[in-house]
């Protein structure tokens, strides 16, 4: 976090507020009142959120948000590779979230790894008579067909909670009969206001059903840590884990990218929890702190500046052996990173980027863009809370626009005014802005690239950003006639 107040040419509190007011003018009065507190110019020095957040989505505005189920299936549970994750309810939710997050997995599909789509495919009769019996049968079938699965999660879709099924008692009974951890997760999509509650509910189920049910068989060491809130998008975990191991730490478990159920269950034995995505997993870090006295530390592995800061902060939690290794690692990678910057910065210097992502990247990636000489002139989240926006304020230049759960209309208006050179957001936004001729990278999925975490990731990130911004294809958008 830099103390210096950073300014962007032409952007003032007044200009940003005027742009916001103009965008809001199109709304009916009620909608305008609801949306206004979610849009504001950044106050960098305050260190405080300038917007309201984690409120109900305003109906009809075209939000990018997902639901609690999406947070449970896509984010927390889905990436655990050695469990069967059942989308319990109608076919759609599981089908749409099947393989669409890019949380890569090791193992053999269908044997030791279950990155596939399991559903109870509810029909009318299941709605009328309830799906508990079907659930019980399908759990038996899953165990029979996938004998090496380490457990089963049951992720409820909307109807399950509405018709009053009791998946918790089915799970309890079946877990006993099948001698297998079966975790009921009441993450119906109508709960809460976004993916965020799904993260929280899933964290709670890890607390209730998983943690402290296993112990590592090898002896403990002072360097045992867990990597929390890294979902292995495009291989991020593999890059981050390798770096943590290079500074001498033992990564005992990963939550939950390429995750293994039993290692997650033994995480109460580590000495430090390192958390990347604060939004989706701070809950369990706090539980482990209170219950087992495990401290936790947020870190940021995007771009060499933030990696350096983070490595030193991590090192400071350990003895001199680790600290020395940290310095060695920094010294090793600094010149490699500098070479990357030297290559790409001349083509990216002064370029402006706007972000709208989930719960972490709208602030965490800013440093990586800045390493490449770029400026972030607008940022916002789909499902963040006040504490996320508090953490965002110092990262954003002064008076730049901050938007919480923006509608597509608002985003279009801001982009039209600010004319960024790059937008980093999701698949629903991508083609809107590309039609306008504005370079775009999907920042949830790394646009089918990655990893972006760690030193290894920065070279990919820099290449991708350069490729997007400077592709010759953009020059062809306007026809000469």
């Amino acid at each position: 976090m830099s103390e210096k107040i950073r300014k962007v040419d032409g952007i003032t509190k007044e200009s940003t507020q005027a742009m916001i007011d103009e965008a809001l003018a199109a709304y009916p009065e009620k909608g305008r009142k609801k949306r206004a507190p979610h849009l504001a110019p950044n106050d960098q020095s305050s260190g405080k959120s300038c917007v309201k957040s984690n409120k109900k989505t305003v109906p009809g505005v075209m939000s990018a948000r997902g639901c609690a189920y999406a947070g449970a299936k896509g984010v927390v549970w889905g990436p655990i590779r050695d469990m069967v994750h059942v989308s319990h309810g109608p076919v759609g939710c599981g089908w749409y979230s099947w393989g669409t997050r890019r949380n890569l997995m090791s193992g053999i599909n269908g044997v030791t790894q279950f990155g596939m789509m399991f559903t109870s495919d509810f029909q009318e009769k299941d709605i009328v008579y309830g799906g508990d019996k079907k659930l019980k049968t399908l759990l038996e079938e899953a165990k029979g067909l996938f004998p090496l699965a380490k457990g089963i999660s049951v992720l409820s879709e909307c109807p399950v909670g509405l018709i009053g099924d009791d998946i918790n008692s089915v799970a309890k009974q079946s877990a006993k009969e099948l001698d297998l951890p079966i975790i009921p997760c009441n993450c119906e999509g109508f709960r809460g206001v976004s993916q965020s509650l799904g993260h929280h509910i899933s964290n709670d189920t890890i607390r209730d059903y998983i943690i402290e049910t296993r112990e590592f068989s090898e002896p403990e060491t002072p360097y045992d840590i867990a990597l929390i809130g890294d979902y292995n998008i495009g291989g991020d975990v593999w890059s981050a884990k390798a770096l943590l191991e290079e500074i001498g730490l033992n990564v005992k478990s990963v939550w939950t990218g390429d995750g293994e159920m039993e290692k997650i269950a033994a995480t109460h034995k580590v000495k430090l929890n390192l958390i990347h995505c604060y939004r989706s997993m701070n809950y369990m870090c706090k539980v482990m702190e209170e219950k087992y006295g495990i401290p936790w530390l947020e870190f940021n592995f995007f771009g060499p500046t933030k990696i350096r800061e983070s490595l030193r902060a991590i090192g400071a939690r350990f003895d001199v052996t680790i600290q020395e290794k940290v310095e060695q690692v920094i010294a090793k990678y600094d010149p490699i990173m500098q070479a990357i910057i030297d290559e790409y910065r001349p083509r990216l210097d002064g370029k402006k980027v706007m972000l709208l992502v989930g719960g972490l990247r709208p602030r965490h990636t800013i440093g990586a863009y800045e390493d490449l000489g770029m400026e972030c002139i607008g940022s916002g989240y789909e499902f963040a809370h006040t504490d996320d926006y508090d953490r965002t304020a110092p990262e954003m230049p002064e008076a730049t626009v901050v938007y919480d759960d923006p509608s597509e209309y608002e985003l279009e208006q801001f982009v039209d005014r600010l004319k960024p050179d790059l937008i980093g957001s999701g698949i629903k936004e991508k083609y809107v802005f590309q039609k306008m001729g504005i370079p775009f990278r999907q920042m949830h999925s790394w646009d089918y690239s990655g990893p972006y975490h760690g030193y290894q990731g920065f070279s990919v990130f820099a290449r991708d950003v350069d490729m997007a911004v400077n592709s010759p294809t953009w020059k062809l958008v306007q026809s000469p006639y």
Partner: protein
Amino acid sequence: MANALGLDIKPVTEYLPEEVERVKSWINSDDYKEKNFARQALVINPAHACQPLGAQLVAHGFEGTLPFVHGSQGCASYYRSTLNRHFREPAPAVSDAMTEDGAVFGGQANLHEGLENAHALYKPKMMAVFTSCMPEVIGDDLTAFIKNARLKGHIPEDLPVPYANTPSFNGTHIHGYDSMLLAILQTLTEGKKVEGRCTGKLNLIPGCDFNTGDYREYQRILTAFGIPHTILADISETFDAPCDGSYHVYAGGTKLEDAADSINGRATVTLGPYATPKSFGWIKDNYAGKHVALPMPLGITKTDALLMTLSELFGKEVPAALKAERGRAVDAMTDAQQYMHDRKFAVYGDPDYLMGYVSFLLEMGARPYHVLCSRGTKKVEKELQALLDASPYGKGCTIYMNKDLWHLRSLLMTDPVDAVIGDTHGKFAARDARVPLFRFGFPVFDRVNLHRYPLVGYQGVINMVTAICNKFIDIKDETCEDRFFEMMR
């Protein structure tokens, strides 16, 4: 030992290599297949989505139309992102973002606020409302809600707002397509029927087709015939919009006035008999002119049927250009038949596509060896069987109704084929079986531009033959021993 929750604490275990090897080969066995096919409750890797997705697709096919999801917010994001990924195009749609209190109070307040906001921000000419699970389970009354929305002034009196119940726990995306299409046509044509008036036009219903190239192909064929037409519903511009520096929320679609006047058409042809039975049934009772249901025109025979029907309905000879095109397609088939003859295929997809795949493969002398339908009726099965029975190449081929892609995997491993025709979701099974997958269906998330290549019509035949045969030749070139690697194939 037990933890605070009373659960046993066990050691972290690693998989034993021999156990992994055992299961790895077991899942490819006949024994596993039997167990797999005995499943009663668990569905694994289904090849169908839910109703609202189809409803959103058809809504995009009308001019100025904003798809409106009455239900949880996340549903809309799922449908949108699925269409984004397949077409690599925007898919603007709104939701009224129902939450827990909707379960108590119903969804009317959300719907009204949503309609008002969406209308103000996105200025649609029509909003097509369809439902996801929540309002269906709690029993929201859309008829009353939308009537009230007008009464209370949330939407203008004259704004068309067709609505359809599209419960996700019933049917698949094709049924949602049908229900929404029906609601749109009923709304737009209301009071538009004029006795004795005939627009002279053909209403063409392509069915739940996610290939924009197919729509353009229909237009080309009809233009060649000189038949004036209205496509119900036309997604070709919506999901294949030019990149020219501007973004249009409504990039295309059938003009609302044309859709309204379609009730006075000279003829209506549906090419998606399984995707549009409700709409077509209603059209038969209400639309002027003749009504014909034809199979989706995949392959020569089914394309012939379309052209002959058009010729008959409009009293025009099949244009020479199309006849020549037929000749070229047949030329492509005869030239390439040696690369497909007797090759075994596994095919899966929606019923209308399946009929076409089977028919085309049989024309080529290839064998639709495993025919798998994720959701289908007895009627679908009967028609598929009749196709197989009518050809010597259908002998020994088997139909698997209401099965999923994990069943397909067992089939591929125990009774191998040379290739699979399906969509992106089949890539894991195809890879395990080491056979190529042809992505003729929906969705395609992992290849570019395929939705721009028509599969229907004679041009579609050429495209399918080219894709399949060249892939087989590529495989030969990539895998053959050096001494058999040669210049010509």
